[in-house]
């Protein structure tokens, strides 16, 4: 038994800011002070509050140290672990009350409104130790399913819970299982989609890094429900830590007899393998993912036949996303009614969002369905930094859309998001402030889909490219009002005629920004102006002769030699030479240079 546990976040965010070295420093320092039999250092999964990484939490007090540096380690060990005095100066300021006592993390704005089901073990257990997962009811659901429930009962429970796919489209998970269970075949497969391709979404990775066994357990449950004996996890090669932890977890599960032949002494046998992706966004689409597991070019194919009939290697297959699986064991243990009691009428349970962009508390949050965007942005997210105004939030990545400030009170669930022209997607939520140009954002996503279109069907391959050209025309200041009509017409055509989800949703970012920020498009076209000051071709830099003190700093900074003037006299910019790099604006100490 240890009297204290030092939990060091080992998620990708914190690892990127050296949490590995910090964990090592704690181990060294603890050894040096002779506390090694009393204090244990554990590398956990993500705590969620990535903005404050690297994070170290010390139990039993639950002291939350944020932005820890290697040089802080000795002080924390000496003061906190040896003398029992938490170093309040280094704690997350929201956890320190006015009288210097420590508040619980659950009382901070970031955690208060969260409800952790899929992320419940992340940051709590050591993901590389199966015993810790088992200690938190791990594999109890699999045991219950195998010894007390029939496959039909399992499927019925998932159906009753109202669980819908967390990967984007929100298809009822139980229904998917039911279809696959109903098809007879010599072999069936269970797959897990861990090819988290949406730029800005990282919840699946965090679950695999922080709680890999939950995915293994849920896949075994799914396999039992549909009658499969083999599973594959298709995971991005860009996620080395997740791949490593999942590999360790699979091996441990095999050692414990939780994967392999005759699990829990029953007739049920199931094994699991990892397949690495190689960087293709389209492989998040189910048929493309299966083609890729087959080792081919990951192109989608027409449905029907649906994968539940003819999927991987032409056998009945189900594919669920990591976060979907992470909910399954809890539903089995606590019951369908428990899960269905949370959320909105048609969207049950919780959803994990990756908060990013122009927001104070970037990180991972899990909230009950139906929480408003305002709560997420203003309370949990801590608002927009630098006193800027909230302009829009983007959900659903390249398939989704932008939610404007006027709809900030919309309760977030699958159907509401679709109704306002966006979608849940895998759960990236990027906040934008007034410095973001909506035409530029639409262009950014379209560049992504043009790049990632697999090329199999023409509406997507050619259509998205033409759409991008029209947007480029507008940001170059050459657009006409007719172009807006053309964009709308082409966008609808691409949506209606593309083969797979990638093309069918690719125009969404364009359509939703046109719907809510049409005046910004018009401003680009008619007045040749970019209101946010982003689109280079439309910017003109000017020096205010009243504010300019003639310090010559801008002239010396300008890479194009476009600024001229004599010392202590107002300078001026030759717009024909100016390359619009903005270097002068950053250097000017008097705020005399403006763009617009």
């Amino acid at each position, binding site marked *: 038994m240890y009297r204290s546990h030092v939990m060091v976040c080992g998620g*990708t*965010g914190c690892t*990127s*800011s050296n949490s590995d070295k910090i964990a090592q420093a704690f181990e060294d320092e603890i050894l040096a002070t002779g506390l090694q039999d009393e204090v244990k250092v554990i590398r956990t999964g993500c705590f969620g509050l*990535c*903005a404050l*990484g690297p994070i170290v939490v010390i139990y039993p007090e639950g002291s939350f140290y944020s932005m820890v540096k290697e040089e802080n380690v000795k002080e924390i060990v000496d003061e906190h672990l040896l003398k029992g005095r938490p170093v309040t100066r280094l704690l997350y300021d929201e956890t320190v009350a006015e009288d210097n006592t420590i508040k619980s993390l659950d009382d901070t704005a970031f955690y208060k409104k969260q409800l952790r089901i899929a992320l419940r073990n992340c940051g709590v257990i050591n993901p590389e130790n199966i015993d810790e997962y088992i200690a938190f009811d791990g594999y109890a659901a699999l045991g219950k399913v195998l010894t007390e429930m029939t496959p039909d009962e399992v499927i019925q429970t998932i159906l009753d819970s109202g669980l819908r796919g967390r990967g984007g489209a929100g298809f009822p998970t139980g229904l998917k299982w039911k279809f696959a269970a109903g098809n007879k075949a010599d072999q069936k497969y269970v797959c897990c989609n861990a090819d*988290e*391709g*949406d*730029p*800005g*979404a*990282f919840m699946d*990775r*965090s679950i695999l890094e922080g709680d890999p066994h939950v995915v293994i357990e849920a896949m075994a449950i799914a396999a039992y429900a549909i009658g499969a004996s083999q599973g594959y996890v298709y995971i991005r*090669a*860009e*996620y080395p830590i997740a791949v490593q932890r999942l590999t360790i977890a699979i091996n441990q599960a095999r050692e414990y007899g939780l994967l392999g032949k005759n699990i829990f002494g029953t007739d049920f046998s199931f094994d699991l393998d990892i*397949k*690495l*992706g*190689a*960087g*293709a*966004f389209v492989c998040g689409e189910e048929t493309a993912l299966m083609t*890729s*597991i*087959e*080792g*081919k*070019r*990951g*192109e989608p194919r027409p449905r029907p036949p649906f994968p539940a009939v003819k999927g991987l*290697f032409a056998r009945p297959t189900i594919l669920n996303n990591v976060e979907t699986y992470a909910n399954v064991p809890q539903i089995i243990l606590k019951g369908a009614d428990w899960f269905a009691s949370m959320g909105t009428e048609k969207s049950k349970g919780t959803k994990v969002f*990756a908060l*990013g*962009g*122009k927001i104070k508390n*970037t*990180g991972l949050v899990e909230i009950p369905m139906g929480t408003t965007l305002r709560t997420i942005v203003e309370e949990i997210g801590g608002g927009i930094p630098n006193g800027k105004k909230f302009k829009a939030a*983007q959900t659903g*990545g390249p398939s989704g859309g932008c939610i404007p400030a006027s709809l900030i009170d919309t309760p977030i669930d699958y159907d509401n998001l679709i109704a306002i022209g966006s979608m849940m997607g895998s759960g*990236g939520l*990027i906040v*934008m402030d007034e410095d*973001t140009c909506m035409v530029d*954002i639409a262009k*950014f*996503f379209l560049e992504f889909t043009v790049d990632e279109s*697999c090329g199999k069907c023409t509406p997507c391959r050619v259509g998205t490219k033409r759409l991008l050209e029209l947007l480029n025309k507008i940001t170059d200041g050459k657009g006409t009002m007719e172009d807006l009509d053309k964009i709308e017409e082409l966008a609808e055509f691409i949506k209606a005629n593309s083969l797979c989800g990638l093309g069918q949703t690719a125009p969404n970012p364009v359509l939703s920004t046109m719907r809510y920020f049409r005046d910004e498009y018009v401003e680009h076209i008619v007045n040749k102006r970019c209101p946010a000051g982003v689109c280079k071709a439309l910017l003109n830099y000017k020096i205010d002769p009243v504010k300019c003190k003639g310090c010559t700093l801008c002239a010396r900074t300008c890479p194009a030699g476009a600024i001229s003037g004599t010392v202590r006299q107002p300078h001026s910019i030759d717009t024909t030479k100016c390359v619009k790099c903005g270097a002068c604006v950053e250097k000017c100490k008097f705020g005399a240079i403006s763009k617009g």
Partner: protein
Amino acid sequence: MRRFSGVPFKGTKEQEAQLVSWLEEHKTMPGVAMPALQKAQEIYGYLPIEVQRIVADVLEKPLAEIYGISTFYSQFSLCPKGEYKISVCLGTACYVKGSGKIYDELQKKLGITGGECTADGKFSLDACRCIGACGLAPVMTINDDVYGRLTGDELDDILAKY
């Protein structure tokens, strides 16, 4: 468009032996082609036509099929990479925080465009999709080192370290 580079192929007998033995061992695995190319890239660092030919020959698949897979996935590279691989994250969270500017700046500083390698073979530059360190946006990586919360001013100092 992805083209083969003009750099002459410098594969060794040992590399070939290592690849062929892996291929022979895994030949019957379902869906072997992708892991095979991943292994080949791990051994050679990239996938020149010579390497693709070895994979195709041992797996007894048409070269066209192997080439088709090599050019489909962005992780596979037909050109050699620099000693130090720079990747700038152009995921949404980083983009909104200005990683596009960082990417432009690096192209200027290194005198190459994305996907290329400097003439001395020291640096190569790529844009990458989200690496999941959105809390540190904007982010770039140089081999295994991660640099976050970039502003652009520190790029010279960072490059000078290599």
